[in-house]
């Protein structure tokens, strides 16, 4: 018992050591955003909410933060929903159905995964312009979803591969169609995988910068990362207090989603499903 506890203390110290610099960074973020001045980690001049003024008034000619929050939620939520829906169908088909070119398709998906999204930026730009989706949330959502598909398909394929064939055959004999099997048997059993992928892609989209930055021009459809970048735009006038406050505000939803979905994310790394 004694030994057991001592080992846990050791583990705790190691974890603390590793996370200490990161925790310090967040502490600084909190302190800077709520105080007039901070020297090192030492607040000076008392605390104030001046840096949080973006919550009730627009900063310069930028849109209101609530509009940006809404846009970001739509963006990340849309990506998450689309990635899960499309990957689930694709992954089920690849895992359970035999069709021509199945192996090649799987290989191609993997190759696609190897491409950095940035290398396709210009080509994607032309496609979006042609589709008249440039400078729209829908456009970025689609592009973002496309880039996340390989991961989604491979991840969910793993979950579907783990479903027993007997169960599928039983459902066929019971009279179910493949669609019904997909919706009533396969999907519910892959639920942990669906949640994991949904949360994961939500978080990735929430933090995404380069795609929205490239494909969004008007401030009407700005999302958080663009808003944040605009604050750093001209270095001379950068208001670091404001920047930290916005940064903190930007992090909060991601932290909440992460905390809510932690157990599913862990499952993703272990893979597979247990009924």
């Amino acid at each position, binding site marked *: 018992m004694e030994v057991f506890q001592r080992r846990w203390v050791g583990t705790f110290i190691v974890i603390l050591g590793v996370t200490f610099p990161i925790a310090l960074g967040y502490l600084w973020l909190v302190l800077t955003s709520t105080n007039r001045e901070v020297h090192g980690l030492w607040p000076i001049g008392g605390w104030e909410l001046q840096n949080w003024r973006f919550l009730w008034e627009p900063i310069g000619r930028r849109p209101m933060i609530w509009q940006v929050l809404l846009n970001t939620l739509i963006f990340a939520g849309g990506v998450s929903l689309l990635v899960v829906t499309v990957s689930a169908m694709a992954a089920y088909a690849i895992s359970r159905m035999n069709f021509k070119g199945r192996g090649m398709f799987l290989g191609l998906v993997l190759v696609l995964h190897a491409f950095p999204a940035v290398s396709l930026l210009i080509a994607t730009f032309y496609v979006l312009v042609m589709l008249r989706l440039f400078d729209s949330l829908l456009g970025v959502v689609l592009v973002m979803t496309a880039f996340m598909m390989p991961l989604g398909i491979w991840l969910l394929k793993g979950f579907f591969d783990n479903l*027993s064939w*007997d*169960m599928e*055959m*039983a*459902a*066929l*004999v*019971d*009279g*179910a*169609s493949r669609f*019904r099997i997909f919706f009533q*048997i396969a999907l*519910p*059993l892959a639920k942990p995988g669906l949640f994991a992928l949904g949360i994961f892609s939500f978080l990735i989209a929430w933090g995404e910068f380069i795609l929205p930055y490239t494909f969004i021009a008007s401030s009407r459809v700005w999302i958080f990362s663009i808003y944040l970048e605009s604050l750093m735009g001209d270095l001379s006038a950068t208001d670091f207090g404001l920047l930290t406050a916005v940064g903190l505000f930007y992090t909060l939803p991601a932290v909440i989603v992460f905390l809510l979905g932690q157990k599913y994310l862990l499952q993703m790394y272990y893979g597979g499903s247990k*009924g």
Partner: protein
Amino acid sequence: MRAAALELKGVPVALRGLAKRFGTVDALTPVDLDIEAGELVAFLGPSGCGKTTTLLLIAGIYRPTAGQIYFDETQVDHLHPRDRDVGMVFQSYALYPHFTLFDNIAFPLTIQRTARNVARERVTRVAEMLGIGEILERRPSQVSGGQQQRAALARALVKQPRILLLDEPLSNLDAQIRLQARGEIRRLQRQMGITSILVTHDQAEALAMADRVAVFCQGRLEQFATPHDLYHAPANTFVAGFVGHPPMNLVEGRIENGRFRGAAGLELEVDVEGDGPATLGLRPEDIRLDAGGVHAGEVAIAEALGRETLLTVELGSGLQLPGLQLKVLVAETEAVPPGTAVSLDLAGAARHLFDGEGRRIP
């Protein structure tokens, strides 16, 4: 009688030249088989012999490479499983883990859009018949293996199928429950008069439960006969060696002038015309130990099986002759320790003779 209320109607099943090939592997070479209405037929064979393939072909999971399947004279091999009206129990039971037992059993009815109250009643009735009426709200992981097996059986029966397919339904059960379940399935099947096919690798199960047994080996149907005929008149050396426990002694040799000559000077009169290579089969339980017997040998191994003892007797241990081992099943009271010199009486043993290709010589 509750079972009768389920209104089952067994139909005859016919396979005509049914074959299945996976890539370059012949999983099943053309098979012809006629199963009568209400009959329980066992598909018996070692693993990979084609018995499960045949079952899945009948269920409609696999498409045949060649041949036809008829249910009650209607060709069904092109039909989707849902249009074949079969119920099936899988070895793993294949219950849906996220449904309660009730929803599992009701699943086929849900698909058929059976009215809710009718479905509820039928599920309850089948479940009660199988003794799982009290646990319908539990999930598969919350009930025992035996109860899962009953739930799987209930799910197969609830839609009142024309044919019941059982794929090793008992092999995941404890030995004790298995014997009980064996009798129960057989009783239910008889009561309902539903045509049933049982796939098993356990010959005791096949012989005990089935009206007729189809023995498969390497994708071929070796013999289709009653348990009695399978035991007393195996069609070839495979069936002879596979059916019966302990397995039949198979002695290779030649037939010359109405006498069979095997290794170790084993010689027996046989009622066969024509000469040529042959195999003689003798069941261990047919051979007697006899002090005055013609065939002298020595006990090499003695295995106590409880009521009986299985002796392995080495014949012709003389230097010139190749040795020959025969298994002999004797009552425990007659058992002798290894090393004892014995002689065997083969006169009363049924002589199963097979030709050079291993086919039974009638």
